[in-house]
């Protein structure tokens, strides 16, 4: 039992470190990338992998320490998985609308929102 507790704590610690590292790398990405559209890829890392690792760690920890199998964290995962892409989509759309500058070697023509076509 002692051994199992150590093992669970090891896994929880590893998951927490992994999640924290991913969040830091996402933040570094936000600083290092050059234009708005590329910076949007940084938060995607922290809202998927980092959050996933931390939620797994939380489920494991509380499962082992309270002994009851109930994980409300799954609802948190569900809500984040629903809301994060929508907010990213809206932010990118508004960036396109404001014609924010893009990195010079971006492939594909300069797309802008066409009010006449897009608003019906």
């Amino acid at each position: 039992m002692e051994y199992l507790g150590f093992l669970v704590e090891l896994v929880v610690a590893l998951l927490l470190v992994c999640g924290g590292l991913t969040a830091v790398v996402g933040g570094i990405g936000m600083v290092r990338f050059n234009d708005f559209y590329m910076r949007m890829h940084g938060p995607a890392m922290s809202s998927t992998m980092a959050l996933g690792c931390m939620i797994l760690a939380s489920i494991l920890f509380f499962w082992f320490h309270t002994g009851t199998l109930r994980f409300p964290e799954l609802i948190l995962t569900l809500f984040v998985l629903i809301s994060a892409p929508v907010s990213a989509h809206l932010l990118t759309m508004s960036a396109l609308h404001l014609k924010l500058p893009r990195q010079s070697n971006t492939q594909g023509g300069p797309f802008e929102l066409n009010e006449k076509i897009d608003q019906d």
Partner: protein
Amino acid sequence: MKRFFHWLITHPFISTLIFFTWLLLTSFTPGSAVLAFFLALIIPKLTDAFWVPQPKIHKPFKLVLFVFHVFYDIIVANLAVGRKVLSPSHHSRPGFIIYPLAMQEPFPITLLTSTISLSPGTLSAHLRPHDNTLLIHALDVDDREALVNFIYERYERPLKEIFGC
């Protein structure tokens, strides 16, 4: 009998969602299971008039498989983007890609755009209903055709099979 069940459970997907959400929010005891069952029956009935008809899920097992595929792809894409962020000389070639959608229904398209946005490295930027295309921003793209093919084979074709559209 079959007709009675159809009348009782008008929205099977929403009913299951309410059932499991209630169980997760409270606790896994028989009492809350009974309450969750009644809520799952009553709430879709009461809100029936507000729901826009959605395509039915034809292959639920394929949906589970699809979710696992997406989780795997998210982990792989995270590693790829992390390597790109941390490499000292990063020469990424970002690009906008127009992806032609093969579906019409709003719900599968929402699932597809969410999947694309969730995996780091690709980001759905704008849905253009006039010619049924999706504008995708990719962080590092070598071959635009290959990316479009990958998204079609990996995400859109399973979604089309799941929803039968």
